[in-house]
């Protein structure tokens, strides 16, 4: 009985050792993978911040103004005059048609209707 127990425990020890090493190597591989991904994330983050910096440099109002001034011969841009900006509600409504116009129109429509 004891012999069987001995064999069993030795087997258990061997398997345990094997499994432990398996897990250890797997953990190391995972850790390496994590580190690689982390590196990649850091790099990408750096790239993003660099691109952001470049983008904000490219769209600086001062820079765009300079570009416009340089190419305004072709573009013919002008500053907006305050009088050009109005609220839609200020626009006058379409004037009511005059009676003679309505009459003429309906006569015309009526004639057309008959023709059809």
């Amino acid at each position, binding site marked *: 009985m*004891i012999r069987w*127990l*001995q*064999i069993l*425990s*030795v*087997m*258990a*020890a*061997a398997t*345990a050792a094997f499994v*432990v090493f398996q*897990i250890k190597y797997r*953990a190391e591989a995972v*850790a*390496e993978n*994590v*580190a690689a991904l*982390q*590196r990649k994330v*850091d790099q990408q*983050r*750096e790239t993003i*911040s*660099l691109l*952001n*910096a*470049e983008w*904000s*440099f490219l*769209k*600086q*109002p*001062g820079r765009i*103004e300079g570009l416009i001034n340089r190419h305004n011969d072709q573009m013919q841009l002008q*500053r*907006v005059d*305050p*009088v050009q*900006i*109005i*609220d839609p509600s*200020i626009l006058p409504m379409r004037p009511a048609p005059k009676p003679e116009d309505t009459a003429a129109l309906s006569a015309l429509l009526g004639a057309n209707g008959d023709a059809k």
Partner: protein
Amino acid sequence: MIQQTSQSAWRHVRNAAFGGNRGGSRGGKVRVALAMGGFGLLYSVLAMRLVMIGVGGETDDKSSPVAVSSSQARPDITDRRGEILATDIKTASLFAEPRKIVDPDEATELLTTVFPDMNRARLRRQLSTNSGFVYLRRELTPRQQQTVHDLGIPGIGFRVENKRFYPGGATASHVLGEVNIDNQGIAGIEKYIDRSGLTDLNAAGFDIGHNSEPVKLSIDLRVQNVVRDEIAQGLAHYEATGAVGIVMDVRTGEVIAMSSGPDYDPNDRAQALDKNNMNRATVGVYEMGSTFKTFTTAMALDAGAATLNSSFDASHSLQIGRNTIHDFHSKGRWLTVPEIFKYSSNVGTGRMVLKLGVDKQKEYLKRFGFLDTLRTELPEAGAPIVPKAWPEITSVTVAFGHGISVSALQTAAAGVAVVNGGVYFPPTFLTRSQDEAAQVGRQVIKPETSADMRKLLRLNVIDGSGRSANIPGYLVGGKTGTAEKVENGRYSKTRVMNAFLSAFPMDKPRYLVFTLIDDPKNVDGRDNQSAHNAAPMCGNIIRRIAPMLDVAPRPADQEDAAVMAIASAQ
């Protein structure tokens, strides 16, 4: 196979430990049981440990492979709409470990091919020492880094460091301030960020770099660009030594734009050290001249010393002791308060303040914040120069802006209170909602006084010295000021310091615009009065920024009729 070897090993152990093959004896059984129990315990400990590692996830410290940078990471700075004003970019610095360098002469030769401007003798000396670490050059360009890398010199390496980058260059330089080569804030908002805790966290070992929230300023980059542009143009056109432009939100006290010219590009550290590039908006203090009559009139109206209908004798000069106060353009008659304001009468304003009294005047000046240094987020703050004694003559000169020197931002902040219904908001460079503003605001004059002042300011732009700032549709109101500059202890007759304080739209003000120009010359065949430089600069700014700030232009309306009515009322 494993079993066999294990079994034979076990037999050896048993023989050694228990002296021969005595399995089957009673004592032996107990001992074997004991040994088994012992090993069982050991394995269970191992198993538990395994479970602990599996569950707890004891991590390796491999997660930060990037070389630790020595210069601290800083949070980004953005404007109120989220546009980046300052950010960190990574640059490489070149260092050497002289101890590891095999041939200093060869290394020197190779390095000078990449950096021709490097001092050869000094470099050779640096590399020949036995020290462990020395910086050779900081902030390399990517191309330089690549070239040095390709040379493959042993003992030469790179360190990744943060470098501050300002995409706008000089656009908001005086607000943002600057950092030193170790990325520590040494001026402006950059210094404010450090003072409010960033450096402490870094010193304690936290890298708060890319995860930290950006610092959001009240500045609007578009408006800032316009103000800076007009200031730069004004400086050049009027051949002035300095100029300032400030835009503030009158409902919250936020600074929307602030520019001081000449300015500098914070990406180039050397420029910032030039004394001529100082911050004239918050550090420089100036006699504001007639612009100050805005505040004098407001206090006289508020304290009841005058109403819009009262008149004061401006028919001849005002004699106080040995001093005589003259008017620039005397009308030679009694003037109503609107007329005094419109014609910018020193005599009339003087008489008004005499009726108000010195104590009241000082009390109101204190309320408007003119007697104390204005503290904002910016570390740069100039202390006002206030007269020590206040005899009547001082009181009268202060009334029209001579004898007291205050900063441009101080004047703008007080101007906000005059037009917005009488609430003084301490100016801020960080965003502030109207609710937050209500917490810090304090009533300094009555809302009715503020309404009267709006009419006077509007009148002055329709029919007074501020005409060149009258942008149709935006109901601009404002007051000019031309102060004689002090030269060799006397007021100069030719050199002036001009200001223009304005706000729009006057029926319900949203924004205040303040311009100041130091020592403009006579150009375009006109004299150097404020109406010919500070006021048109202000008008140009308003014309360009109003559409950006969603202020809708309106056709001239009844509001102006009411303003004209007070002008004609005698």
